[in-house]
């Protein structure tokens, strides 16, 4: 039997901080407040598997990722990543994992991307030939040729994120951690990144552990979803099953010059909204999005249409409601 890429047993992280009382009393005394960011989680990730960890803000997703990548020591429990204990073998593990924080750059903002990549070759002790080959492949696949000589600080968010992911893959990691990789990107950039991460991982047998607020990241990249809330795992199941139960919804917002637009179709619910705005919740298992749009257009007077996934908070809420 193959050893899992990640094994986590009763992993816990408790933060504690001093909270001062208001006014003069606060000068003299403070109480220690503890917060269980991760409250004893157990899971395994097989080699080559692509897994998403989702949950609302403060659920413990990023804390889990930080502990598994070795930059945060747990309060209790154990974890093995590629056979190593991450927080005890941080630097040895660094050669074998790639990490992308969507909200933090790992590149040198003032340097052209190419210079950052060259520096990373030395940082990861890569032989020049294999490094150049890998950079060439990633440059072609990600369409980076035109921006390689541009300082990272002057790139658009989408360009920067493509460079971040390239940087995380240049040393050929076996495991990729992605923390909100598509946050703030436009639809095209998100699609490019999702396709790339999925295809690259599939082609190279790479394990992926991803956190995101965007349900499309999860649906399009990952085979399995772990839902966490308040530091605990509430659901751990294949994405297909989760999609059938919870992700079959879209939210369509219609802007109109006149009164609210009525769409009378099975699986379509009208949400309360403001004047000139109609918000429809669509159950895509009962009705297709294009049918709803067609019906709305037939009603006339539409000025603008937006189609969105329901916010992650709502999906999570549905999941909690279903699992009790």
């Amino acid at each position, binding site marked *: 039997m193959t050893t899992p890429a990640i094994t986590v047993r009763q992993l816990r992280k408790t*933060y504690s901080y001093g909270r001062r009382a208001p006014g003069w009393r606060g000068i003299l005394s403070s109480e220690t407040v503890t917060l269980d960011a991760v409250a004893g989680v157990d899971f395994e990730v097989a080699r080559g598997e692509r897994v998403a960890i989702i949950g609302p803000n403060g659920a413990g997703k990023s*804390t889990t990722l*930080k502990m598994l*990548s*070795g*930059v*945060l*020591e747990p309060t209790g429990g154990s974890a093995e990543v590629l056979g190593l204990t991450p*927080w005890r073998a*941080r*630097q*040895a593990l*660094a*050669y*074998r*994992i790639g*990490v992308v*924080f969507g909200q*933090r*750059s*790992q590149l*040198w903002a*003032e*340097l052209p991307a190419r*210079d950052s990549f*060259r*520096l*990373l*070759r*030395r*940082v*990861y*002790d*890569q*032989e020049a030939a*294999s490094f150049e*080959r*890998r950079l060439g*492949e*990633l440059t*072609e*696949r990600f369409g980076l040729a035109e921006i390689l000589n541009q300082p990272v600080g002057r790139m658009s968010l989408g360009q920067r994120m493509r460079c971040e992911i390239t940087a995380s893959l240049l*040393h*050929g*990691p*076996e495991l990729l951690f992605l923390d909100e990789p598509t946050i703030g990107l436009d639809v095209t950039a998100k699609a490019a990144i999702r396709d790339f991460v999925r*295809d*690259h991982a599939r*082609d*190279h*047998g*790479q394990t992926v552990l991803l956190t995101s607020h965007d349900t499309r990241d999860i649906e399009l990249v990952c085979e399995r979803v772990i839902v966490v809330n308040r530091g605990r795992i509430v659901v751990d199941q294949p994405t297909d099953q989760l999609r059938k139960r919870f992700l079959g919804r879209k939210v369509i917002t219609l802007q109109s010059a006149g009164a609210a637009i009525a769409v009378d179709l099975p699986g379509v619910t009208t949400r309360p909204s403001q004047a000139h705005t109609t918000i429809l919740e669509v159950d895509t298992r009962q009705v297709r999005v294009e049918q709803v749009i067609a019906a709305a257009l037939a009603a006339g007077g539409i000025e603008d249409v937006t189609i969105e996934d329901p916010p992650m908070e709502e999906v999570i809420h549905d999941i909690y409601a279903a699992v009790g």
Partner: protein
Amino acid sequence: MTSTPLSVEAVRAPSFARTLAAMGAALRVGVGQTAAAWPVLGGRCLFYALIMVVLSALWDRVAAERVAGAIAVPGDLAVYVGVTEWITLSIPALHLKLEDEIRGGLLEPHLLRPKPYFALAFAQGFGAALVRLAALGVTGLVLLEVSGRAAPPPSALGFILVLGLLGVACGMLLYALAGLMAFWARRTLPFQLVIQKLMFLMGGLFAPVSLYPGWLRQASEASPFAAHLYWAGAQAIAPSAAMFARGLAWQVAWIVLLTLACLALWRAGLAKVLRRGGV
């Protein structure tokens, strides 16, 4: 895209050599960045020329009017000041970079790499300092030529170059100590100010420490602040191989001690970040 087997290349070189190679790459990045920002570098040289015109006029007046009283000032103080300012203006703001990255929670991406962040940050800063030393050095030599002052002998210029390079390293390590305090302090400015003031007094930026009373001179000469500035400057007013050897010994000693102090602070701060996450 073709399929590439994912494997970490076997690395035979010892870890220290690999770290040195990475530091070399970071140093080249620092050189490249600073050279690329040549308008900023030009402005720095212009500023150096401006303050040297003012300070040399002041010290010439001091010498001419005997304002320093009975103190015998050997050599040309303007050249001494030129050397100390050459070093001072070459120092990159490593402490501010450290403070920004530590306080801004930007360390994590660096900690996910197999090479020590502090070593790479120092090397990158030193690369920047090398370019500034070169540009300001050329500016200083041009000023010396234009002013018609007597230049130090060639051997002293060689000593100044070596002591200047090591002086920059001492100064960067001193300021790095202030920057690393960001792990515990809200702002590192107070630490930076203390170092700056001591640099001014004990480092000989105010006046050569050879002019100080005996006990203060001895204390200053033994300080890391003199290792940063004074020993290189001293070659401009009283060049000698013996002074060079003395200064070199103090500089090497302080570089070792300050490096150990920085590493101790870094490890303590890192342990805090790994335990608590962020600052």
